[in-house]
C-alpha cells in the first residue's frame, strides 16, 4: 500500500460541519412545507391490553383536525426484519403490548388542536395481565404476549462448537458468574421526527434514519405501495447509535395521515416519547462459565444470556447474537456453547445499540482478570495468549484477514504502565483492560453491498451519488475524502447526493459498521473507474504514458514533469465532445458467507473484515461514598487505516463517554412497565465534567480489502470501554461487579461485600 496519499489519512475538516456550526443544517423537525399539519400520537396507558374498539370520530369534529387514524386505517401488515419475526404492525388492532405504544393519531393545523383532538379519541381496552421480568415471562402460565412465541421466547440462538463439557472437565480453573446490566437509552440528541407528504401517488418522507432503503421497503409493504412510490429523502440526523436502524411506528403514522389528509404532516416526538416509544436497549443477564488451563489458555466457554426484548422482535436474532460474535472475533475459543434467549416482556421495544451487550462483554473481561489473578497471571499476557491473529478462524468459522489486536493491547498497556499498576493497585485505585473485535458489516442478503455513481461536471467538479448514510459520525465527509484522494479534486469541489431512495442505490446503511469498509469502498471503485477515463484522455493530451499521469488539486499532470499539466475540467469537456462524459460506477460487495443465518446456520464468514480495540480505564473509588471517578482513559483501536484520524478519534472519545463513563451513570429505571427516567435529567448522559482525560491511539493494520486499508472506526471502543471500567473496579476492590451501571450505591455494596458487611 502506498503511503504517499494526499488527503486520506489527514485530519480534514468534515464536509458537513460548516452547515452545523452556522445553524443552517436542516434536521427533520426544522422542515416546513406549505399547508403542513402537525401530528400527535395517542399512546397506550396499559402495558398489556386487548383493544376492543377505537373511535376517532369525535377527534375529527375538532375544528382544524384534518385526519385521524388508527390501526383500522392500515392494512395491518406486520413488519419484521426477518420472515420469521414479522410481528409488528406499528398500529395494532388486537392488543397493545407496552405503555407508550402507538394506538391512534391525528393531524391538525397546530399542536394545540392536535392535542385537543387526541383527548377526544375513545379507545376501549380490556386490560390483560402483564409481565415485565424475562424470567417470569418464560415461565409456563405467564401472560402470552404474542401467540406465535411459546413461553414468550422470541429468539433462541444456540451455538455449540467443540466439546464444551469435556473441556470444562479438563480445565485447571473453572469459574461461573452472572452479570446483569440495565438497558440504556440511546438518548440521541434529536428526538425522533418524521415529515411525510403524499402527492401524485408518491410518498415522500424525511426522518433520521440509518438506512433509507430498508425503511422504504418496510413502508412499501405496510402501505401496499410500489417500492418506487415510497421515497425516503436525505436529511441530517441528530445521532442514531443503532436506534434509527428500523422502520418506526411514526413513519407509518405520518404516512397514513399524509395520505388521508392530502397535506404534508410533521410528527415530532417529545423526549419522553423518544425514550418510551421509539427504541430502547436490552436489559441483559449473562451467565458466563469459563474453563482455563493453568497457563491462562481459554479451553471452553459456556454461556447463557437472557435479553429482555420488550414487546416486539425488532432486530431480535441479530441483537441476541452480536455480543457473542464480537467476543469470539477477538479470542480463540476451541470449545464454546452459547445459548442466547431474547424474551418478550410488556416493555418498550429493544433494538441494536452501538454499545450493545455490556453485561456479557464486561462480564467476560472482568471474569478473565479474576481468573488470571487466581492463576498468578497478568491480564495482558492472558489476552495476548488467547487473542486471535491474522489468518486465524473464529469459533464460528470467520476468517480474520487483518488483525491489530496485539498492537492495541501492547500500545495501550505500555502507555499506561498497565502491568505494574494492575499487579499492585493502590488502595481503591484500579486499572482495567477490555478488548473486543467488531465485524465490519454483517450478512444482510442483497443489501450487504453498496454502489456509487460518480460524474465529473464540465467545471471539473464532482458529484457522487451513493446510498451511504451519515447519522453524525462523518460518513459523508469520509466518502468525499476518499473521492478527493482518487480523483485529485479538492473536497470542497465534490458534491454528495446520498441516502435518497429515489436516486441512490442499495447500501447496508449506518448500523452494521459497514460504511467505511463497504460504502467507502464502492465510492473508491466508482472514482477509480472515472479516474481511468480522465487519465486516458489526459495522457493523450499531455503526451505522456497513462501510468505517468497524476491527478491533484483539480489538475492532471505528468508525474515525471509536474509542470506539464492541465485542469481536469479540460479533460471533462473533451470527454463531452467525444460523446463519452466522464462518469463512473462502482460497487463493493463484501466477502460474506450468505448461507450464514443467525438462528439456523450460525457459522460461516460473518463479514469482510474485523476491527480490533483495547481500552484501559483508570478508576478511583471514594471509599466513603462508593463514587467512582475516572482520571484517565486510554483506548487503542485498529481501524485499518484512519481515513480522517480526527473523526476516528472523535468516535473513540464519544465511545468512551457512551460506553465507558456510561458504565457508572447510565441505565433505564423501571417501575414495572413504567419507565421512570424517560428524560435527560434522570437518565444520566455523562457531562463534560464527568469525563476522564482521554488518550486515543490509532493502530494501523491496513486491511487488504478496505478502502486505502480502512475498516470501521470507533465501534470497538463502544464495546470494550465498559469492560475496562468493570475490570478497573475489580482491580480496585478485588470484587467482581454484579450489575451495571456501577452507580455509587452498587459500588458501596461491593466494598461492603469485600469487608464482609451484611446488608
Amino acid at each position: 500500500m502506498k503511503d504517499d496519499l494526499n488527503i486520506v489519512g489527514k485530519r480534514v475538516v468534515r464536509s458537513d460541519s460548516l452547515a452545523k456550526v452556522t445553524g443552517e443544517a436542516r434536521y427533520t423537525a426544522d422542515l416546513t412545507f406549505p399547508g403542513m399539519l402537525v401530528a400527535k400520537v395517542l399512546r397506550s396507558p396499559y402495558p398489556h391490553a386487548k383493544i376492543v374498539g377505537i373511535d376517532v370520530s369525535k377527534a375529527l369534529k375538532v375544528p382544524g383536525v384534518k385526519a385521524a387514524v388508527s390501526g383500522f386505517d392500515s392494512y395491518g401488515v406486520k413488519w419484521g426484519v426477518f420472515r420469521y419475526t414479522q410481528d409488528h404492525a406499528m398500529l395494532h388492532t388486537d392488543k397493545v403490548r407496552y405503555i407508550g405504544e402507538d394506538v391512534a393519531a391525528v393531524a391538525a393545523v397546530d399542536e394545540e388542536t392536535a392535542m385537543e383532538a387526541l383527548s377526544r379519541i375513545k379507545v376501549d381496552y380490556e386490560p390483560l395481565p402483564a409481565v415485565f421480568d424475562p424470567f417470569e415471562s418464560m415461565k409456563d402460565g405467564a401472560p402470552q404476549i404474542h401467540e406465535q412465541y411459546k413461553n414468550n421466547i422470541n429468539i433462541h440462538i444456540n451455538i455449540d462448537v467443540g466439546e464444551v463439557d469435556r473441556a470444562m472437565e479438563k480445565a485447571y480453573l473453572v469459574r461461573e458468574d452472572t452479570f446483569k446490566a440495565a438497558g440504556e437509552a440511546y438518548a440521541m440528541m434529536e428526538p425522533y421526527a418524521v415529515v411525510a407528504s403524499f402527492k401524485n401517488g408518491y410518498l415522500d418522507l424525511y426522518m433520521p434514519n440509518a438506512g433509507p432503503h430498508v425503511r422504504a421497503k418496510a413502508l412499501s409493504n405496510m402501505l401496499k405501495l410500489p417500492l418506487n412510490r415510497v421515497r425516503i429523502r436525505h436529511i441530517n440526523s441528530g445521532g442514531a447509535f443503532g436506534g434509527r436502524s428500523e422502520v418506526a411506528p411514526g413513519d407509518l403514522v405520518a404516512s397514513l395521515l399524509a395520505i388521508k389528509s392530502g397535506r404534508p404532516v410533521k410528527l415530532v416526538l417529545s423526549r419522553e416519547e423518544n425514550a418510551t416509544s421509539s427504541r430502547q436497549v436490552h436489559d441483559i443477564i449473562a451467565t458466563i462459565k469459563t474453563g482455563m488451563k493453568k497457563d491462562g489458555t481459554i479451553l471452553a466457554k459456556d454461556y447463557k444470556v437472557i435479553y429482555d426484548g420488550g414487546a416486539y422482535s425488532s432486530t431480535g436474532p441479530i441483537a441476541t447474537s452480536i455480543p457473542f460474535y464480537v467476543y469470539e472475533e477477538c479470542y480463540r475459543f476451541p470449545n464454546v456453547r452459547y445459548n442466547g434467549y431474547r424474551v418478550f416482556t410488556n416493555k418498550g421495544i429493544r433494538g441494536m445499540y452501538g454499545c450493545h451487550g455490556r453485561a456479557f462483554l464486561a462480564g467476560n473481561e472482568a471474569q478473565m482478570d479474576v481468573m488470571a489473578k487466581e492463576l498468578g497471571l497478568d491480564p495482558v499476557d492472558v489476552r495476548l495468549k488467547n487473542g486471535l491473529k491474522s489468518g486465524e478462524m473464529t469459533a464460528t468459522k470467520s476468517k480474520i484477514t487483518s488483525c491489530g489486536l496485539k498492537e492495541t493491547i501492547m500500545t495501550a498497556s505500555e502507555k499506561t504502565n498497565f502491568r505494574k499498576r494492575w499487579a499492585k493497585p493502590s488502595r481503591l485505585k484500579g486499572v482495567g483492560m477490555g478488548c473486543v473485535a467488531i465485524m465490519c458489516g454483517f450478512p444482510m442478503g442483497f443489501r450487504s453491498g453498496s454502489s456509487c455513481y460518480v460524474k465529473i461536471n464540465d467545471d471539473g467538479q464532482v458529484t457522487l451519488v451513493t446510498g451511504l448514510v451519515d447519522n453524525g459520525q462523518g460518513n459523508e465527509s469520509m466518502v468525499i475524502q476518499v473521492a478527493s484522494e482518487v480523483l485529485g479534486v479538492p473536497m470542497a469541489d465534490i458534491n454528495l447526493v446520498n441516502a435518497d431512495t429515489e436516486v441512490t442505490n442499495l447500501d447496508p446503511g449506518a448500523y452494521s459498521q459497514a460504511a467505511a469498509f463497504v460504502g467507502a469502498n464502492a465510492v473508491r471503485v466508482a472514482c477509480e473507474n472515472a479516474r481511468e477515463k480522465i487519465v486516458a484522455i489526459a495522457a493523450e493530451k499531455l503526451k505522456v504514458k497513462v501510468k505517468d499521469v497524476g491527478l491533484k488539486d483539480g489538475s492532471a499532470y505528468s508525474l515525471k514533469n509536474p509542470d506539464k499539466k492541465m485542469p481536469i475540467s479540460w479533460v471533462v469537456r473533451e470527454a463531452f465532445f467525444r460523446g463519452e462524459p466522464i462518469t463512473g460506477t462502482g460497487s463493493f460487495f463484501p466477502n460474506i458467507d450468505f448461507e450464514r443465518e443467525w438462528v439456523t446456520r450460525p457459522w460461516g464468514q460473518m463479514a469482510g473484515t474485523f476491527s480490533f480495540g483495547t481500552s484501559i480505564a483508570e478508576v478511583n473509588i471514594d471509599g466513603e461514598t462508593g463514587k467512582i471517578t475516572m482520571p484517565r482513559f486510554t483506548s487503542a483501536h485498529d481501524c485499518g487505516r484512519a481515513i480522517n484520524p480526527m473523526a476516528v478519534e472523535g468516535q473513540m472519545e464519544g465511545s468512551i463517554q457512551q460506553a465507558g463513563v456510561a458504565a457508572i451513570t447510565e441505565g433505564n429505571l423501571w417501575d414495572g412497565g413504567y419507565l421512570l427516567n424517560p428524560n435527560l435529567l434522570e437518565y444520566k448522559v455523562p457531562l463534560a465534567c464527568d469525563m476522564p482525560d482521554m488518550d486515543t491511539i490509532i493502530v494501523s493494520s491496513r486491511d487488504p480489502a478496505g478502502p486505502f486499508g480502512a475498516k470501521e472506526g470507533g465501534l470497538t471502543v463502544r464495546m470494550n470501554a465498559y469492560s475496562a471500567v468493570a475490570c478497573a473496579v475489580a482491580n480496585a476492590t478485588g470484587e467482581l461487579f454484579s450489575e451495571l451501571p456501577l452507580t455509587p450505591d452498587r459500588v458501596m455494596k461491593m466494598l461492603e461485600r469485600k469487608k464482609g458487611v451484611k446488608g
Partner: protein
Amino acid sequence: MKTIKVSFNINNEDVALDVRPYETLLETLRERLFLTGAKEACGLGACGACTVVVNGIPLRSCLVLTPEVEGATITTVEGLREDGKLHPLQETFMEKGAVQCGFCTSGMIMTAKALLDRKKKPTKKEIVTTISSNICRCTGYKKIVEAVEEAAKRMATA
C-alpha cells in the same frame, strides 16, 4: 387567547411580534422567525440544545416565555457571523472536529460564546464547568473543550 406584542433585537435586527402569552422563546425563534439553529432536544431545560444568548446571558430558550424578553438583545447561532466571517468558535468547532451529529452544536457554541464574552482567558476547568451545562451525546466533549480553548486564544489575539 389574546396575543401579546413583544419587541426585541435579534441578530442585530429589531423585530415586533404578536405572540401567545404562553409561547416559549424557542417556539418563537423556530416557528415565527425560522431560526431553527436552536433545537428542542428535551424541552425541560435538561440539555442546553436550545441555548441562545439574551442580554449576554446564555438561556435555555425552552424555559423562557417570549414575553419575558421584551426589549432584550438576543443572539442566536445564525447571528454569529459578522460580515460573512465566521465567529472564532464556529471556525474552531469545525477545525478541531468538535461537531459530529450537530444537534447540540448551536447550543454548545452559544453557551461557549457567552463564556468568552464575559471572560477573556478562561481556564480549561472553567470551560469544562461552563459546557457541563450542555449535553453532547457524540463527542465525549474533548474536542469541544479544545475548540473553546483555541477560540479563546484567537479572540485574545484578534
